[in-house]
């Protein structure tokens, strides 16, 4: 799509609002358990049910987590005041949400993407989650429901909302931003950050403008995006919708729209009547938070190593580009990788295996065995295909690569054995050989395939090509 945009001279502008549920023991304003999956309305008390007379008291750990994230995003941590956001909706027990408005905890920071680009952070504030509404009826969707049921177990769970500046220009950046933010949250251990389970929720503010324009055009807020993939699809759909409208001489209306994964489109949410007027005002039941210098210093000193730092460290040691080790860091395999390298594994090959050939976790794989595997491969004792297979086995059941190679019969085939095979093939397929020698590289695959077939895939592809080339030039 980006090409399409460039072709038409349109530029994509995205700002992201990411909500993350904090992994505290109890809720934000009461001592109810912050737990997922319990019987409906069992993790509740007068406060999170919004019963008349109840009052909120802030959870200090939630505040601490928020400040940690703020500092990790290079924000200033400020004196903050909670505010009420007023609107009627049954999943909100008080019919207002306690949030932060003009004086949030964290302001003005940035996030560094693996590519080295930075995206500005406007703010990261604390607020409470809502309950869960289930729509009952034939469709299961809100529009076709006969009635709805409300469970307040999630009401009052602490959230941080991280608001980026509208500085994201491509879908890839948007995705990278969310993964990187997730990485930071995981490194801080403040949330399990599972997008599919809703512990991270992403809303995208999307607009477009013609290249060269300075002002931002009308944006739409896209909600209900449940994976990185749908984030990309939703942004793409919405941007094209805007471009389509402008091309027709129309303009989009500023509104909240919902991503419909199945239909692959966004839909307009609310009626016009509900023009957003949240009547924010300072929450009189809570007092301001004013963290001391010492608290902020302590947070900075105790900051765990964040993904960008870890990428940099690994890149420096391996000589691989930081962007290429991003996945490795994201999977928390960087410490392991460094261990493998220390034990003699070649850096770029170690990174290659960990990034490309490892679908799940490390399992039974040890640093020592991966180091040995890489060395065997490097000495051509096994082929890269064999190494990949063996890696899978080592992850599943452990053991040493040497024993495993014997067990699997993955001992490298002698060079002269392959030379013999190649010579046989040249004799049997003289037509193909002529074509190969006259420069038709398409038949190269044919010869390699035949050798592989004869050796049950155990021959080293590189070696076959080398022999083929030798034979053709000496012809």
């Amino acid at each position, binding site marked *: 799509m980006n090409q399409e945009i460039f072709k038409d001279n349109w530029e994509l502008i995205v700002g992201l609002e990411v909500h993350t549920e904090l992994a505290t023991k109890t809720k934000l304003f009461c001592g109810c358990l912050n737990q997922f999956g319990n019987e409906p309305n069992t993790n509740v008390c007068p406060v999170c049910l919004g019963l008349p007379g109840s009052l909120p*008291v802030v959870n200090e750990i939630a505040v601490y987590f928020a400040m940690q994230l703020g500092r990790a995003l290079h924000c200033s941590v400020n004196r903050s*005041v909670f505010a009420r956001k007023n609107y009627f909706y049954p999943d909100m027990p008080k019919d207002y949400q306690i949030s932060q408005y003009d004086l949030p905890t964290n302001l003005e920071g940035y996030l560094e993407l693996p590519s080295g680009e930075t995206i500005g952070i406007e703010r990261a504030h604390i607020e409470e989650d809502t309950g869960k509404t289930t729509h009952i009826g034939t469709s299961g969707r*809100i529009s076709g429901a006969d009635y709805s049921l409300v469970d307040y177990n999630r009401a009052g769970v602490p959230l941080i909302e991280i608001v980026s500046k509208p500085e994201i220009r491509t879908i890839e950046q948007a995705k990278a931003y969310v993964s990187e933010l997730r990485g930071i949250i995981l490194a801080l251990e403040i949330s399990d950050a599972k997008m599919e389970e809703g512990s991270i929720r992403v809303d995208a503010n999307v607009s477009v403008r013609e290249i060269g324009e300075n002002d931002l055009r009308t944006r739409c807020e896209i909600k209900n995006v449940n994976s990185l993939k749908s984030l990309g699809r939703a942004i793409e759909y919405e941007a094209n919708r805007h471009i389509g409208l402008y091309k027709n001489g129309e303009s989009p209306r500023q509104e909240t729209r919902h991503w419909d994964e199945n239909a692959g489109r966004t839909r307009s949410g609310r009626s016009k009547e509900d023009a957003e007027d949240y009547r924010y005002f300072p929450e009189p039941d809570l*007092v301001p938070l004013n963290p001391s210098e010492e608290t902020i210093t302590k947070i900075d000193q105790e900051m765990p190593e964040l993904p960008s730092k870890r990428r940099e460290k690994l890149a420096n040691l391996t000589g691989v580009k930081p962007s290429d080790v991003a996945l490795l860091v994201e999977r928390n395999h960087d410490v392991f990788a460094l261990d493998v390298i220390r034990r003699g594994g070649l850096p770029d090959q170690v990174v290659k295996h960990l990034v490309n050939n490892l679908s799940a976790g490390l399992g039974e794989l040890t640093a020592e065995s991966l180091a040995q595997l890489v060395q065997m491969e490097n000495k051509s004792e096994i082929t890269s295909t064999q190494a990949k297979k063996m890696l899978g086995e080592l992850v599943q059941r452990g053991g040493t690569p040497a024993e495993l190679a014997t067990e699997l019969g993955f001992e490298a085939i002698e060079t002269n054995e392959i030379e013999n095979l190649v010579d046989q093939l040249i004799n049997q397929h003289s037509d193909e050989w002529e074509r190969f020698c006259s420069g038709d590289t398409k038949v190269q695959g044919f010869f390699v395939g035949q050798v592989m077939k004869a050796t049950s895939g155990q021959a080293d592809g590189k070696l076959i090509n080398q022999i083929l080339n030798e034979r053709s030039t000496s012809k």
Partner: protein
Amino acid sequence: MMSEPISPEEVAHVAYLARLRLTEDELSRFTEQLGAILNHAEDVEALELDDTEPMSHPLPIENTMREDTPSPMLKPSDFLPEAPAVEDGRFLVPKILGEEP
């Protein structure tokens, strides 16, 4: 004659935001009464307040927080019997028009 600080349309909008329905009579009565109160409030215009900090709370205290430790929770039988409509341990509400804000 005093200016009209609030129009019937504005009162109707405010009633909508507050989830209240007004009859024609109520609309004109409330418009007049709210207007009188707002007119009275205009007296603060006499004050020079530009350099005054707003005071949203009478106490100067800050940082009141609690530890992240669980406290007793309610049982559904403590509060569900008070609910107007319940199904499967959850609060039942009529069909919702429009998505969540």
